[in-house]
């Protein structure tokens, strides 16, 4: 499994923190999205913000967002973004 890129995790934490009203310091790779005070709307908005920032399309469906969109932890999300991101020559 791919490792979590710290820069991506940091961006994910900051976007999710803003969306959930929590300080980013308390959020890490193991934080479960379902444990955060995020309603489906806030999660969709956060995912959209991350898509725009990294120019990727995260595979989630708006109608599933209430169930976490199939993404368990912030680390999973960061790994997914890292894998989707077009990084030429990346050996990670």
């Amino acid at each position, binding site marked *: 499994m791919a490792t979590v890129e710290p820069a991506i995790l940091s961006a994910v934490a900051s976007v999710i923190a803003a969306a959930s009203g929590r300080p980013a310091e308390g959020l890490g790779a193991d934080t479960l999205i379902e444990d955060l005070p995020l309603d489906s*709307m806030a999660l*969709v*908005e956060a*995912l*959209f913000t991350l*898509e*725009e920032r990294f*120019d990727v*399309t995260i595979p989630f469906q*708006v109608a599933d967002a209430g169930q976490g969109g199939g993404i368990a932890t912030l680390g999973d999300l960061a790994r997914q973004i890292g894998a989707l991101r077009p990084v030429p020559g990346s050996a990670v």
Partner: protein
Amino acid sequence: MERVAITGMGLVSPFGTGVAAFRAGLLTGRPVRERLTFQGADRLLVPYGAPVPDFDAEAHFDAETLARSDRFSQFALVAGAEALAMAGARAAPHGAGAIIGTAGGGLSTTDAAFRAVYDEGRARVSPWTVPRLMAGAAAAQLSLAHGLTGPSFAVSSACASGNHALALAAQMVRSGAAPLMLAGGADAMLTFGGIKAWEGLRVLSPDFCRPFGPDRNGFVMAEGAGVFVLEPLSAARARGATVLAEIAGTALTADAHDLTAPSAAGAAAAMRAALRDAGIEPGAVDLISAHGTATRANDLAEAEAIAALFVPDRDSGHDSGHDSGHDSGPRVMATKSLHGHAMGASPAFEAAAAILALTEGLVPATAGVPAPALDCPIRLATRTETGADIRTCLSPSFAFGGLSAALVLTRPA
């Protein structure tokens, strides 16, 4: 069969937000028209419209509703809240619904999303694009806001949409299919793409909307929403609600004649069917809240239909010239001369004007028309009256496609 009462109305119009602003606008008699300033307005051939002034969405809605609703839904939500507050219906009964007519749906959202992907080359649009632009969004937002679990959807018949919604909702209340309905129209088409489309039809006035006038040259495009609370008259009286008007009759008809050319026979058929449904003779109609778009063809057909229906002996004698029909039949008011043409919301504005005529005798003058055209033999309101004795008002709408809907509104005995 229940008699159908209107117990609340709410309006967001080019006169401002609220029924009071609408009433003041009709009384003032000054047509709304301003130069549009949104992105690309300099490329419009007719860069004028009648937008809702000072609509502060952020003052009305939380962040969630703001992000998930188009301007047309926001208009409907504000109008719906005013209507329910006026009705005094503390909680909508189980099975209440909402039917909101709209010609364009969430066109502001469509326009912005198209601009993003076509013009700016963006790869993706907001996840809320479809929930905002869908035609049923306004009805859905009203359902969410007020816990409406009954029949809730959009109807679309271009510029008659609001009347189709009101007629359908009235029929549901009348039959007992729903205990209370919110109904009306909402549109927000003052966007670059929206106006470009209407420019193509050559129906936008380069100056002012002068319905039934000799120099009429089209309408001023507007936006807004009007929403009404409909419930059984017996239920309204039982809970001590103020009844604004009764919907005594409705008709939904189609010309089956032409996609864009109006039909006098079709217009007359819609009005005649609404009167028949109400069990009211044409002679008992005091006032018509006309469709009156100020296009040459619509007003000609509408006036001919009114004359045929209400002054049937007009053609039997010799041609008496200018006065033929201008002094007989019911009064006709044409409020698009003031608020412009808000597409699917226009019928709701015209129903609201009808209600103000029934409740306080307000019949506004037709702005910019000192006397009707020779080819429009109708008794057009040319000076503003207050305190007129109006008991029965017919409010018809005639849309492109030949799709018509008409309401008979009365002061309940």
